[in-house]
């Protein structure tokens, strides 16, 4: 195996000792002192969400003419502006949009968009237009951000993902991060289980922890060993999760994941970057039912999340960014589905969002790019805006060249508490 940069993991707490499992890491954690950090929650809509049926350009006659079976009936569209309406499944987000906490950016893409799920996903996650899939070890845009601005003193939960794959977006040189495959993964396995009838339980745990404190000579073994230490650290930190929510989330994977995010935020364990992926947006056929379910899940879960973190007094610390690797073709494909397309839309939710209006303009359906929505906004402008206005950091070292600030976030008001410098 080739050892790559991200395999070199630094664990902030230093050497591991037997006391780790019962030790109190938080008292030694400077991130907790002085208030909670600003967190970014990234929601990946895997498969290519059909943006045109999400934020609908309902006044454009082309929309209706090329989507005879997929166009949403005019009476059902939630008309939040005089030119764009929400998919009916997004009902719970309408008050958040009108209340100025939710917005979206249309026509996002990049010059070399090629309709490949995997390459486009890697481009969005790295912010780099590589010719093919990202080689193993390529850092993500948030990984580079973390290396520059969060690296020293990071813990196993500084970055956290609920994803079937370890997201490229979080790959960093300095932070191992914690990935779980579903919201219940840590819930059922939050400790090192040893047969309760084993009289050697404590002796066993001590020996195992001792072994994970012993250095290895190969880089791969060192990677395994340090991730093991991170696992023991995460076990300790996750014992401190905030209480369950008082309000009801949808009982979906996304609903449970977002409740976990709220509890992580409430725990104040120094988590700064969270990545959640939701599969199923690749709607080549029978799109309406699939997309309605997915968008309904997103809207219901986000509304519950926003209410929960507001109740917990944490809403000023959280920003949600939703994105998808591409939009879909303007015309439907004949089986109530859509093919891979080009530009799509991202959305944002949070107290600091300047919502109630949208960004990126109208999809230009009369000048299609080979049948697809043409790109008008480079998606890296979204990242630029977030790093500049949410994290209040210089985006240039992360993104290598300047992009436009799209203005969808309020500039800092009052004291902003950032994660370690």
């Amino acid at each position: 195996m080739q050892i790559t940069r991200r395999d070199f993991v630094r664990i902030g707490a230093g050497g591991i000792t037997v006391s780790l499992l019962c030790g109190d890491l938080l008292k030694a954690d400077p991130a907790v002192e002085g208030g909670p950090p600003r967190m970014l929650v990234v929601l990946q809509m895997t498969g290519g969400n059909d943006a045109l049926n999400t934020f609908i350009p309902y006044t454009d006659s082309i929309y209706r003419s090329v989507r005879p079976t997929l166009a949403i009936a005019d009476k059902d569209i939630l008309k939040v502006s005089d030119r764009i309406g929400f998919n009916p499944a997004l009902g719970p987000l309408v008050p958040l949009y009108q209340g100025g906490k939710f917005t979206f950016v249309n026509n996002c893409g990049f010059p070399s968009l090629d309709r490949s799920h995997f390459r486009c996903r890697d481009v969005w996650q790295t912010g780099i237009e590589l010719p093919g899939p990202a080689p193993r070890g390529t850092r993500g845009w948030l990984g580079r951000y973390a290396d520059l601005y969060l690296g020293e003193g990071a813990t196993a939960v500084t970055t956290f993902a609920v994803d079937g794959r370890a997201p490229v977006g979080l790959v960093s040189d300095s932070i191992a991060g914690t990935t779980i495959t579903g919201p219940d993964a840590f819930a059922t396995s939050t400790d090192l289980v040893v047969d309760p009838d084993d009289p050697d339980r404590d002796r066993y745990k001590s020996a195992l922890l001792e072994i994970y404190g012993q250095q290895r000579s190969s880089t791969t073994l060192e990677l395994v060993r340090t991730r093991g230490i991170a696992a023991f650290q995460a076990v300790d930190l996750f014992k401190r999760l905030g209480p369950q929510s008082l309000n009801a989330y949808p009982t979906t994977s996304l609903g449970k994941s977002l409740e976990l995010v709220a509890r992580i935020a409430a725990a104040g364990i120094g988590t700064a970057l969270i990545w959640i992926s939701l599969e199923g947006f690749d709607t080549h056929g029978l799109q309406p039912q699939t997309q309605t379910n997915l968008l309904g899940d997103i809207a219901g879960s986000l509304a519950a999340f926003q209410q929960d973190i507001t109740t917990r007094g944490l809403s000023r610390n959280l920003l949600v960014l939703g994105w998808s690797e591409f939009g879909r073709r303007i015309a439907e494909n004949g089986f109530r589905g859509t093919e891979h397309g080009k530009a799509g839309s991202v959305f944002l939710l949070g107290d600091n969002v300047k919502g109630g209006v949208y960004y990126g303009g109208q999809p230009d359906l009369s000048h299609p790019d080979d049948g697809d929505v043409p790109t008008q906004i480079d998606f890296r402008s979204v990242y630029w805006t977030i790093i500049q206005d949410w994290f209040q950091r210089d985006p240039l070292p992360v993104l290598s060249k300047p992009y436009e600030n799209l203005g969808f976030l309020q500039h800092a008001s009052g004291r902003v508490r950032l994660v370690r410098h």
Partner: protein
Amino acid sequence: MAFVWNEETAAHLYRRAAFGGTSDEIRRAVTEGRDATVDRLLLYTYTPDDALDARIAAQHFYLASDGTLADLARWFLLHMMFTQRPLQERMTLLWHDHFATLYSKVLNIFWLKNENGVLRAYALGKFRDLMTAIAKDNAMEYFLDQWMSTRTQPNENFGREFCELFTLGLGNYVEADVKAAVMAFTGWSIEGTLSTFLFNADQHDYSQKTFLGQTGPWDGEDVIRIACSQFGHAQRIASKVFSYFAYDNPEQEVIDRFARIYLDHDTDVAALVRAILTSDEMYSSKALWTKVKSPIDHAVMATRQLLLHDDVSSTFQYLVQGGQTPFDPPDVSGWQGGTNWISPGALLNRMNLADSIARAFDPLAFTDGESIHGADDLIDVYLRKLGPLAIPAATRATLSSYVGSGTVSISRQKGLARMILSLPEWQLY
């Protein structure tokens, strides 16, 4: 370093090609020699697998369309854990990843079981035949929406992944080739009542198409033939199979050498695998103990090497939490693999599966026939039978201190097995 065939290299071959060997298997392999062992693994049809068939029959699995994913996953796992033809199952697992279909979309256990049967039947045959059989397979046709693709309303999902993932890879084709492949496959569909392939001639596009520079009235079998004759395709398959058995990120020269062997043998996977398993690279320091076990590797190898009589009931849940649910990878590109299997959450998960495995484990059967005169001998035997594993002196000292001196109780022997399964070293293979 010159190649030496001994217990260590034989165990390496068995870990990579056969889900790990028992002491008896390694001893036999050392005696037979490398090439004879590789041939025996490859020519698996000469090895009867009656005990596996009987074991599976005795389970009375219900694997009709409305069966459960847990049962289907267990059905596949039992194959990997208890087969006498481990290389066939190794390759079935590779193709299961390469031709990923998702239960969460297909929702038909019968189709997914049939697809797994296709992968097993063609595991070491000609790739072109495997590709053709998979393109006609119900689960794949449904998963990538091929069944609905017609000449008037083509669906690009299958044709695009055929080019990008299954045969050529990005950079070896252009968008016009995708469109041509899509049209060539129009009319390939599903006969739902019988769950078989249906060629819907009325919906097939018979017109001239240009695919990868060749023009003709191509249908699906033509584009498969053309794609599978490309050197770029051969490089893709050679690189994938080589990485699976030997080491990740092979050198371009190595890829090209095995790609030529693959094409010279008309896409014969057995010829490719034989060349890899008998190459110097396979037994080099770049290969030995450099790959990360996937959750399936971990569970299957522990079951085989610890001589368990049955699978551990928590295995399926462990695989779900570890991110390797059989028949339900994250998407059509399969599992990410490599060091991504070692996230903190996944590692804890492995340590906890090791607890269930240790409870089911019989230390007396495991050490039967070994000469053990003290705790040190015992640790040596365990490390040898589960490796041979090389561990740091400090770790060896911790194991000794855990095991203690004098007679080692059964429960502490189980603890030793469990601890070895939790070592950083055992997560590699």
